[in-house]
């Protein structure tokens, strides 16, 4: 039962993020890039590996998902286009969506927009500071 639930959560993460972890060639450039590396219990390349193998129970429990800065450096530099930050964002959303409400309201967003800011970073921030 628990296993089934995890499997369905995993599918949900893949669907939400649009990431195919099988594209990863395990070069570790994401973790080599990550500015929040030392803050994390699990690191970007491990996120990808854990989602690939379906080992997400420990990921969902980990503080690491809130340590990601959503800077998207890993997305930018991954040679295989895996996009680890999107995966982390999906996991975070999965945890945060069922509880509480947004930290900022949608009306406040336009004022905060910056042309250079990836849109996903704003959405990430919205979820992240909500607790």
């Amino acid at each position, binding site marked *: 039962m628990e296993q089934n639930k995890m499997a369905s959560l995993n599918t949900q993460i893949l669907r939400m993020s649009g990431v195919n972890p099988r594209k990863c060639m395990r070069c570790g*450039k994401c*973790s*080599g*890039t*990550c500015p929040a*590396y*030392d803050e994390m219990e699990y690191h970007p390349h491990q996120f990808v590996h854990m989602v690939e193998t379906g080992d997400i129970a420990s990921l969902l429990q980990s503080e690491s998902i809130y340590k990601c800065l959503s800077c998207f450096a890993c997305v930018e530099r991954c040679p*295989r*286009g895996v996009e680890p930050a999107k995966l982390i964002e999906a996991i975070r959303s999965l945890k945060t969506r069922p509880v509480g409400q947004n930290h900022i309201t949608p009306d406040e967003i336009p004022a905060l927009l910056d042309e250079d800011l990836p849109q996903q970073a704003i959405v990430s921030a919205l979820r992240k500071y909500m607790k």
Partner: protein
Amino acid sequence: MQRIGVFVCWCGSNIAATVDVHAVAEAARHEPGVVFSTDYQYMCSQAGQNMIIEAVKEHHLTGLVICSCSPRMHEATFRKTAANAGINPYMVEIANIREQCSWVHKDMAAGTEKAIILAKAAIAKVHLNTALTPGESKVTKRALVIGGGIAGIQTALDIAEAGFPVDIVEKEPTIGGKMAQLDKTFPTLDCAACILTPKMVDAAQNENIRIISYAQVEEVGGFVGNFHVKIRKKARFVNEDVCTGCGLCTEKCPQKKVPNAFNLNMDNHRAIYIPFAQAVPKVAVIDPNYCTMLKTGKCGVCAKVCTAGAIDYKQQDQIIEEEYGAIVAATGYNPISVEKFDEFAYSQSKDVITSLEFERLTNAAGPTAGKLLRPSDGEHPHTIVFVQCVGSRCAANAAKGKEYCSKICCMYTAKHAMLVRDKYPDTDVYVFYIDVRTPGKNFDEFYRRAVEEYGVHYIKGMVGKITPENGKLKVQGSDLIADKQLHIDADLVVLAAAIEPDKSARPLATMLTASMDTNDFFTEAHPKLRPVESPTAGIFLSGTCQGPKDIPETVSQASAAAAKVIGLLSKNTLKGNPCVAQSDEWMCNGCSSCANVCPYGAITYENKEFRMPDRSTKVRRIAKVNPAVCQGCGACTVACPSGAMDLNGFKNNQIMAEVDAICK
């Protein structure tokens, strides 16, 4: 009416397991014109072929249908069998009941039904087949090699050795290519120049070889055995026949600020220069973009100091036209531009260099006379980081980088790391790798030596970011085995840049009508069985223009290409493919639609006098197909609006008969 024999092959169980071969033979027997039908285990075997020959004699067959594997596999075999039996080879049709039937179907009933339909289509076609005879064309016994790197040199030497004249066209002022820029070669660490320059001299001295340096192919016409090529030899403003290569002019020229391309612009040479000491031909060349005399008409120092009187400021580009029987592409490679990879700070710091720049920095003839010094301050670096796979192995849709593995980087990086540790044991050397790929003779042993004997630190992981800070390069990367993020203060970073085909390859391929892949590597005729031939007849491939290769592999392939060229040039005449287009001159209205679509330039027009039904004469423009050039692709037959163009062996009525038989 044809007398047709049908022969159904089992191909062991390849066909017989999914297709009821007896049922196919039985169904074929009842088709019109079929006087004999049988099945056999291996039609292509000696016994199978004898069975065909016997049947032809016994039943006086005029056409054969072989239901077997793809025509790509055995059409030639069965055409020979037909010729041995005394009938025209083009009276044979193959029904492909293996690749297009038994191998793709699981259901026996469906597979059998489809096999019968394919057999019927082939029978319908054979009814309309006519005997075809291939035409013959002469072979010009001279070869052209485009590119004078180690690949081109080796190919030319081997062809010349067999007694055929060969021209090398090289775009730089000297032959030698990339190998001339290298320091040592793996896995034996012998010096590149020491093994290359004797070959360059051999090429120059071989009476069968003509080196046309500082030149580019401009136009290619003709076809296998009979290519006509136009070559532009750029003006070097120095008379090649007179210059002795003494080099005095290159020391006296007052214009000293010309970036030295041979040293990857890490130092300068004069406006008149000889690329390197062992250049072949050893002749000076003037760079017109920098020469004061050519730009302003005032200077002339080189002409004054030249005792041989070789300087010629009025020299013009020269066009050489020549006939060739075969052409070899040996256009080589270049490292990609790494500037796009911001994270590696190549354009921010002089101390981030590419591996080819590193070769020049350790080469005794390089800008630092072989001393490994940081480009920024000329200091000896104490910590060096090598980064592998920069731009290699990227996703197909990635904005930058190549999808393929560049193949040579693992080995040359191991070589570089080893050389540094050998010369400067006080230096710490780190290599960040994704995988270490060393599949070659004595290759893995070489890499292990770098680790075990020379103490190079190999780190499984990739560098994510390099930041120049206070004269150091802060390297941030991951160590996946230790599960750590590493921070190394490096003095020098060397990027193993991916390699890509030379930019001249794409326009050359267009001229040669030779196909290329999406990465601009030349495509071989067959990836396994015809690796040194282009699908375009008479065009051969040598070296990295076909795919990433190291020196040993390049030399093997270069010799293989030469063997193929020698095979071609040793023939006096060539038999063409008789399945070529033919125009019905009474139906042709001279509209040029066919010539516009012909990829081979096989169609020309002529004005011909026609005697009309009313006894008047009329001159009309009509299409003519050169059967030696035509490759039988059929594009013209589709383009022709009046239906005048038809393809021998695949005539419109034959195709329609097949379609009818399938749809019946």
